[in-house]
């Protein structure tokens, strides 16, 4: 099993993508993070879903968790309004949000190498360098773990 075997395509966003659309994308596709592309479409960075949520929440609520339950339903609407007019570019520029360079894995990377490199880079998404593909392909951590578990399940019992 190599990286190219389990690689899959992901929706890629860019700096001009509205933040609200990005949140919808994560929600609808159960994404662990977003891949961000340069203007030429080349994937360059990854932001985890946790960091997108971090961007969505006002800093004062994170400073004082006791306030989080006081805001009620109006607070939910505040979150939506807070994202209006903001883009992925604003998110990238926010110093509180961790945006990582995309990890590139060789197409022939094995599962242990993939796991170790992704842990080392603390990322859940990695780009697979596979010249044979026309579209960028990615290994996701859930995809990697699926493949690992499937491999264990196929192992003959002693």
């Amino acid at each position, binding site marked *: 099993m190599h990286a190219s075997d389990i690689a899959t395509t992901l929706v890629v966003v860019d700096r001009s993508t509205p933040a609200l659309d990005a949140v919808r994308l994560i929600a609808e596709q159960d994404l662990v993070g977003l891949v961000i592309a340069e203007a030429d479409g080349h994937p360059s960075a990854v932001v985890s879903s946790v960091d997108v949520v971090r961007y969505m929440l006002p*800093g004062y609520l994170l*400073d004082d968790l*006791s306030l989080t339950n006081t805001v009620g339903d*109006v607070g939910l609407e505040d979150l939506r309004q807070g994202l209006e007019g903001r883009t992925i570019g604003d998110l990238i520029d926010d110093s509180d949000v961790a945006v990582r360079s995309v990890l590139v894995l060789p197409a022939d990377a094995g599962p242990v190498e993939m796991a170790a490199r992704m842990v080392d880079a603390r990322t859940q998404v990695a780009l697979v360098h596979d010249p044979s593909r026309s579209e960028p392909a990615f290994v996701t951590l859930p995809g990697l773990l699926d493949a690992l578990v499937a491999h264990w399940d196929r192992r003959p019992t002693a």
Partner: protein
Amino acid sequence: MSVQIILAIAVFVIAYVFIATEKLPRVLVALGGAALMVLIGATDDAAVFFSEETGIDWNVVFLLLGMMIIVGILRQTGLFEYLAIWSAKVAKGRPFRIMVMLIVITAVLSAFLDNVTTILLIAPVSLLVAQRLGKSPVPYLLAEVFASNIGGTATLIGDPPNLIIGSRGDIGFNDFITELAPIIVVLVAVLVGLCRILFRKSFSFDADRAERVMALDEREAIRDRGLLVKSLVVVGLVLVGFVTSTFTGLEPAIVALLGAGLLVLLARLEPKRVFGDVEWETLLFFAGLFVMVGSLVNLGVIETIGQAAKGAVGDHYFAASGVLLFGSALFSGIVDNIPFVATMAPLTADLVQSGGGGARPLWWALALGADLGGNLTAVGASANVVMTGIAKRNGHAISFWEFTKYGLIVTAVTVGLCFPYLWLRYFL
């Protein structure tokens, strides 16, 4: 002047410059300076650990430690958030009334909590309320930090310089209340008036926005009612302990430690939640400072300066109080007021000891100047630095000069009013 004295003064001055300019972490400078004082023989282990006059003032260190533990547990109850939201709703979402309520709450809390903790508690809820009002939170945050520095002046435990003054001057909790609280009440009222003028463009009323404030549910801020009850009981006992310390003979530090111990026993929280808010760096900073200043006392440097000060002051204690009040305010507005008061305390003690009761107002002049002077600039007090940090993180950066524009006015008016207060109360 011996080489040892010259070296000790050099260590002290260089350390002071580093603390003032914040080129290095202040705890590192204070402990490094203390170590150098030991190495050059300006002090020794007996003095550092066991001398009440020239060593680490354990009363101050342990009073701070005890209060940090108590406040650290109390803040987890959500009480302060409850109070702030409740006050905004009592004000019916009207911006100026909300500011008045927040000023009063901040000033009162700050008299019993340290100022940084007060700001950490009140700033997030103010940002929430301002967001609901559709207003800039900056006027609210500035008003609160001014109120915090003013309110903290009222009690022995409200501001760290007061702890040093209380310990070095043998001044109790009740003395601070009776001597300083009256003028502080006046100054809080004056601050309200000043804020009305300074931020006059920020108080337009919007009924829809007010409704959004009224939709906040303060009861949801209280997450652990049992802990709240236990904490309030212990805080009540500690306050009774402070007030009655003259009769019981229990030092405020012992009262705070007993209260902290009782609350730890009752709360049954994991250690991280009990001690998470203890600022060990601040405690070590105090220890290092006491050793450095104590070394100068050991070598007779402070006594020499004290003699010169006595010669200059004579029996003109009113004039000396004025100089101390305005000088302390100016100095504390520019650099950390803790090392300033730690240095001035032995000098003031000398003057008060030689001058008797007539010179005692010098302590109050020092406390008022050092504490209120913190409002002068954005770096005048730790609470200011914390508040501007929170504001910036939430997208409302307050520049040094924007802070100073308002701080200068508030400091000039509040310190200016203290001068006639000292005259009317002690010298008329």
